[in-house]
């Protein structure tokens, strides 16, 4: 187990290091932020002065070392636009993104698992087939277009829900969130549903496949033979066995929810870090772009690592297979 842990940890570290070089080198090549930040009337001297102040006059490798040294200390540079530490700008937006992703995750569990269960128990019924057809749509529809249609239907035509923005967050029990108020839920409704649709489709398919497989197992027959109710057979015996892959995938998909929030946040003007990155790419605000990419990459690696370790704890076959090869 320890060997497995160390190997996975080293791999995660290596990926992070490679990503940091790629992101840094790449973002460096995008363009000269000085041209954007300083008014075109500025003299050559003023431009040079600004370049020096921002550390842009050093050779590339030196800039990278400075970047790395600071990054380890949690300093990913100062935003050119906000004139604040980039990591601070991003962390200010992070709660909004996390809130959105978590509510989307809630919908995924609340709708994905029961619908998948239903489709798996009655695979040939009309309702089961409708659910599966719906899940194909959920997979293949581009999420940004679904977002527009949600706005068009529920905000413009019906006028039930607000189309943009996030309600003012409130602090309660030490947690600051916009979800403590009804207005907050109204605002989070459309974006979170939009973000969740693809994941719901995924969980429906996973649950259905798991249920169909589990229903043929001997333990289900045995539980039935004992005279247990259908509710207990499915709710306890089947669910327990199909939950491992579902929980794993849900864990892994949290990273993907945070990454895809870029699209949802842009549509619904949700003030999270996804909207920030799009603005920053357009403004050539290099430190923010680098900090966002590094932080998201780090989050994804962290989530993958945690899920992998958890999985190998829950299921010894994974661990044994990996150390055997």
């Amino acid at each position: 187990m320890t060997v497995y842990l160390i190997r996975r940890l080293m791999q995660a570290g290596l990926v992070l290091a490679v990503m940091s070089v790629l992101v840094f080198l790449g973002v460096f090549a995008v363009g000269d932020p000085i041209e954007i930040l300083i008014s075109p009337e500025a003299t050559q001297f003023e431009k040079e002065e600004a370049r020096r102040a921002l550390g842009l006059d050093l050779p590339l490798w030196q800039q990278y070392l400075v970047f790395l040294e600071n990054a380890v200390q949690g300093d990913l540079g100062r935003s050119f636009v906000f004139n604040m530490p980039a990591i601070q700008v991003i962390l200010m937006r992070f709660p909004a993104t996390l809130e959105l992703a978590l509510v989307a995750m809630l919908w995924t569990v609340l709708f994905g698992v029961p619908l998948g269960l239903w489709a798996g128990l009655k695979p040939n019924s009309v309702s089961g087939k409708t659910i599966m057809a719906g899940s194909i749509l959920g997979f293949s529809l581009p999420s940004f277009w679904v977002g527009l249609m949600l706005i068009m239907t529920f905000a413009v035509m019906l006028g039930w829900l607000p189309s943009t923005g996030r309600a003012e967050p409130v602090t309660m029990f030490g947690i600051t969130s916009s979800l403590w108020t009804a207005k907050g839920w109204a605002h989070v409704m459309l974006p979170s549903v939009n973000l969740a649709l693809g994941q719901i489709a995924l969980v429906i398919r996973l649950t259905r496949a798991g249920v169909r497989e589990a229903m043929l197992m001997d333990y289900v027959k045995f539980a039935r033979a004992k005279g247990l109710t259908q509710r207990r057979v499915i709710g306890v015996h089947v669910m327990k066995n199909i939950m491992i892959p579902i929980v794993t995938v849900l864990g892994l998909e949290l990273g993907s929810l945070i990454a895809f929030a870029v699209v949802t946040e842009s549509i619904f003007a949700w003030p999270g870090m996804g909207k920030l990155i799009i603005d920053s790419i357009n403004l050539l605000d290099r430190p923010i772009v680098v900090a966002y990419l590094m932080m998201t990459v780090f989050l994804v690696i962290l989530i993958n690592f945690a899920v992998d370790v958890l999985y190998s704890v829950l299921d010894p076959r994974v661990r044994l297979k990996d150390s055997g090869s």
Partner: protein
Amino acid sequence: MSGPAAKSAGTTEPKAAAASASPWRLAIEEFFASPVAVVGLVLLLGVVIIAVFAPWISPQNPYDLAQIDIMDGRQPPGTQSMEGLTFWLGSDDQGRDMLSAIFYGLRISLAVGVVSALVALALGTVMGMVAAFFGGWVDSLIMRIVDIQLSFPAILIALILIAVLGQGVDKVVIALITVQWAYYARTVRGTALVERRREYIEAATCLALSRPRILFRHLLPNCLPPLIVVATVQVAGAIALEATLSFLGLGLPITEPSLGLLIANGFEYLLSGKYWISFFPGIALLVTIVAINLVGDQLRDILNPRLKK
């Protein structure tokens, strides 16, 4: 995440040819047995024909400034332009006929999707076959890269590349290729590992054929069925991802307006009830993606012997 996908690809074997008819013929007959798949195929053919012949069948050239008039801007569907042209799907803020803009946009979206999927297919196939055929550290290295890449969300990889490379058609294509090649590599490797141990490869080796010849003339054709399935799904994925990037303003430039850009242009008018500028390009995108997926779904059922009873 890697386990099930690799396993299912690994156990996929080409269908044993029936004694009477050729396998291709059987597959085609089986394909037409599903009405849903036929509808998908018809829709897909329609989309491709429109995309290919867009300049000849569009009511106007939406990017020829002489043909459009800003006074015709934001007309609802069915109105007539000042020159007597009917805007069946309305017009955008520049006075462009949306129907023509959609035809041209389809052309660009499909071209970008297909080109990137084909290049990714070629790259992924070569990498996957090399990994399977040579094994050892080559295999470990390639598959480790694939594993790591697939553990990141596609949009994140695309964002990194766009942030790194900048914007433009070529950059978007590069980003799409980078996102996609790993799927092909994994699929091909899984199939090739199984095929490699078969007698016909042994026979070819005994005949002292050259390695490239064995790889490409003997091994590759037998790895094709699962690849075809992955390729259809990936084309749809590429089109959707390109549209998403263009919608975010990070994809194709304004001079190459794909469907995603058309939808983005109409976004600001959506809130004031002028739905058609975004809505109809979205429908075109939707029909394209769903049609490809319907065809891909049926192909998977036909080509996957595990689902055969």
